[in-house]
């Protein structure tokens, strides 16, 4: 592990230990392909376990994480890079790792990340999808569902409990005012309005 840290230092990269078996290195997009190649060919991280993508909408970029393993499989190294959200594009690594083909295909469909040189950027799970890629965070799934599918319309008699509480409290207040016992009743109601909402253990 110390060996790897020193090797990465030569490339002016820092390896951070996150958990017992988990390390992370952040890298710029330009360096990514060469770094992955050197992980594969020089450092001995020959297994690509997964490629993960995260949409940081607020910062305007995608964070891509490549998880690599040695043949000993005793720790994971996450190689992380971030790319622009607009016209997102990454070099395809399916020539180094055949399984990257399917992972990149999925990412292309779900996030709209382009992979120049990828042979099969076809549908993965969706069919005839014509909206923005669904796992982007600006895609509102509830809105989409409401546009497409009506729900069962028999639940319209549902009441808003907050409004009902208020109504009842006011009705009670009026009644109490009449009886001139306002103060005592109010104190009692106060305690009931804020029931503790802790997630409880099974006793």
């Amino acid at each position, binding site marked *: 592990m110390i060996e790897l840290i020193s090797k990465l230092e030569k490339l002016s990269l820092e390896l951070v230990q996150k958990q017992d078996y988990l390390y992370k290195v952040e890298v710029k997009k330009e360096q990514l392909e060469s770094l992955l190649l050197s992980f594969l060919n020089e450092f001995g991280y020959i297994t690509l376990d997964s490629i993960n993508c995260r949409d940081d909408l607020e910062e305007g970029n995608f964070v891509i994480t490549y998880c690599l393993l040695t043949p000993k499989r005793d720790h994971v190294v996450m190689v992380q890079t971030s790319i622009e959200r607009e016209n997102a594009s990454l070099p395809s690594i399916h020539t180094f790792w055949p399984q990257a083909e399917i992972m990149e295909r999925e990412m292309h469909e779900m996030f709209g990340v382009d992979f120049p040189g990828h042979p099969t950027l076809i549908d993965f799970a969706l069919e005839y999808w014509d909206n923005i890629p669904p796992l982007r965070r600006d895609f509102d799934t509830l809105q989409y569902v409401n546009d497409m599918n009506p729900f*069962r319309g*028999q639940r319209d008699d549902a*009441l808003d409990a907050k409004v009902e509480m208020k109504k*009842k409290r006011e009705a009670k207040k009026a009644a109490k005012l009449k009886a001139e016992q306002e103060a005592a009743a109010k104190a009692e*109601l106060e305690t*009931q309005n804020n029931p503790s909402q802790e997630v409880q253990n099974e006793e």
Partner: protein
Amino acid sequence: MAIDVKGVLSPLSAIGTLFEHPKTITYPAVKKDIPLGYRGFHINNLETCIGCASCEEVCMNDAIDMVHPDIEYNIKNTSGCVPRIDYGRCCWCSLCTDVCPPDSLKLDNICTHADSNPDNFLYMPKNHKSIGEEVS
């Protein structure tokens, strides 16, 4: 040509099962005991339900509606509402029973229902005190 005698003969031992008693539970004639902690259909003790809507709030499936019950209820009920559950949504995760402050909402071990009309799956939890107290 080596013949795998064991491979030919040992499967025949399965025929012995012919004389064993079948393991089948002949439901509906015989019903298997479902343990009391099973997460089945809901029961609600209307006498202690305070209508706080915690269950509605925690339910990720948007399955719980607060409605006025048609029978008398707890005087201390703050909103005058009790939960009604849409079984076209519920996933029996029992989060609603975990957060229930007065512990009035429970899950029963009754859990089978089939209906020919898909509109018939709004469920008003039964007011079943006796089982409610047994379920811990």
